[in-house]
């Protein structure tokens, strides 16, 4: 029995869980925006990429400590999210949903090329190397542990915000019925703007955490963007709990698949799993059959 349960397998599984926390955070932001505004931000991962550059410049050029740069970055990306809503989504709110999705696809191009033009295509990194934690012959990097913990805290905060505050309640109400809430005296435009900023802030938080583990380049968004969308669809678009569960399932598949072969095959497995799941549970993992 012990051979099957070897230490590398365990290490990969734990790393999968740690990766899952980060993916869950990314999926949460996207789900929030989808659930409330009924729009898919195809450019979501590119917001994260911009945030990563923000971290890089704040830390490297302005010499800010990591923990001072992180809140600034979060605010910056939140502002970017609000701006995206005002400039692109708001004029298209009454257009067919596909148009909104494609417009954010255009924003994806814009953000990628702005980064290329402004920052060049070199790979950069923060230059912060966190120590590696050794535990019973297994190795875990502190950056992953930190990311996991921060992602969990971020998600709990969002949960409290959504359930304990007036604005959060209004957001949840709007996600249930868009038309009625306007009649109930809720300013939907304001709620949409707050939600977009909140989605942006979550992207900003993710970028602060990702920057510890990955090199920054203009196309870094493509390496985790698609996977985030798949997680949201697998969990059921707009379904927060589903997205959370799906993130961990996906992360485990990627991590374990990568253990037996290349990391790309982990992704291939995850994608294939996704398509099979679309056969079995087309409306998401936790969908209620109506």
């Amino acid at each position: 029995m012990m051979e099957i349960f070897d230490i590398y397998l365990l290490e990969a599984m734990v790393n999968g869980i740690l990766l899952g926390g980060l993916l869950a955070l990314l999926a949460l932001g996207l789900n929030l925006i989808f659930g409330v505004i009924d729009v898919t931000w195809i450019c979501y991962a590119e917001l994260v990429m911009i945030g990563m550059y923000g971290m890089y410049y704040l830390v490297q050029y302005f010499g800010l400590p990591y923990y001072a740069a992180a809140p600034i970055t979060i605010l910056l990306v939140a502002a970017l999210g609000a701006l995206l809503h005002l400039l692109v989504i708001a004029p298209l709110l009454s257009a067919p949903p596909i148009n909104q999705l494609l417009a954010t696809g255009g924003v994806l191009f814009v953000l990628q090329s702005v980064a290329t033009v402004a920052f060049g295509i070199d790979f950069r990194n923060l230059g912060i190397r966190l120590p590696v934690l050794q535990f019973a012959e297994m190795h875990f990097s502190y950056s992953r542990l930190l990311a996991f913990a921060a992602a969990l805290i971020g998600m709990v905060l969002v949960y409290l915000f959504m359930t304990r505050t007036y604005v959060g309640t209004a957001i949840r109400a709007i996600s249930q019925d868009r038309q009625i809430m306007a009649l109930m005296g809720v300013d939907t435009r304001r709620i949409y703007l707050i939600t977009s900023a909140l989605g942006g802030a979550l992207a900003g938080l993710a970028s602060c955490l990702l920057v510890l583990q990955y090199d920054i380049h203009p196309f870094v968004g493509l390496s985790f963007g698609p996977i985030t969308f798949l997680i949201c669809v697998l969990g059921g678009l707009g379904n927060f709990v589903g997205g959370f569960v799906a993130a961990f399932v996906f992360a485990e598949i990627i991590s374990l698949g990568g253990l037996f072969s290349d990391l790309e095959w982990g992704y291939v497995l995850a994608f294939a799993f996704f398509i099979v799941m679309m056969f079995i549970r087309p409306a998401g993992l936790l969908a209620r059959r109506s």
Partner: protein
Amino acid sequence: MTIRQLAPWVAGAGLIALPFVYREPYHLHLLILILIWSFAYTSWSMMGRFGLVSLGHGGFMGVGAYVTALLWNHLGISPWLGIPVAMIAAAVLAVIVAYPCFRFRITGHYFVLVTLALSGIVLQVITATRDYTGGSLGYTPDRTKGSQFLALQFDDKITWYLIALGVWAVGLAIWGWVDRGMDRYALEAISEDEDAAAAAGVNVTWEKLKITVISALMTSLAGALYCQYQMFISPDTVSGISVSLQMVFAVIVGGLYVSLGPTVGAIITILLAEILRIGFGTKAVGWDNLVYGVLLVVFIIFLPKGILGSILESLKPRPKKAKA
């Protein structure tokens, strides 16, 4: 014959005669690229115009290009056989992904994201099987081992121009055939309201599947042609999300609902990229996509019918439907 009926034939004859009169290689090269991409964009618009927005077409294109090149390099199978095999492979892939989507009523956002997964898979498989496909470094079909004709490799641009022109014309013909057929009404009904269409006796799954397979077949052919012409393919140029988005962008800019819309889109995007490249040189890296992206957003907000679509709309004198 009215001028209207005559015009396509005159234009066709002019296009065929063009390379024999004017043979500046760089301009011919641009024309060939425009024709190949126009064909790819036309095949995307076959689905897109009925509300089936797919971001998986980068995947079909990648299958077309890589299967053809791999069969030639590793097994020595001529592209004349390899291209049909690649097209069938793309069609099978399309059915595998699209059938459950249509059967289980996956539409709108969900459909877009599922097809996005498809182009993601193709991209990752190409990258992961780098021992065979060269991974992200790209791949080159071996230079001809004998007859150029059998290898579908031609050095002179005129041959390629005529091939691309022919394929492009066939693409337009298929577009027109769908446009005139009963399927168009069925698909338009489906894109308005699936339940109502089904109640009216339309076989929703079958109709959608049919147009998807046609579109996938055409897209993979475009990929294979691109590969044979350029003699170099890389995962980023023929598959993945960027290629899929590029198709969407060109079609939206040109016009989604008119037959020549995708062609106009291809002309605009390729000329734009070339002008930026010449104007800015190496500094242009990134600028062309920046302009693309801004234009895409602006077009979707202000001109959702596209350039050609809007022009035809404004020319339309009476409520009578304008034929493109």
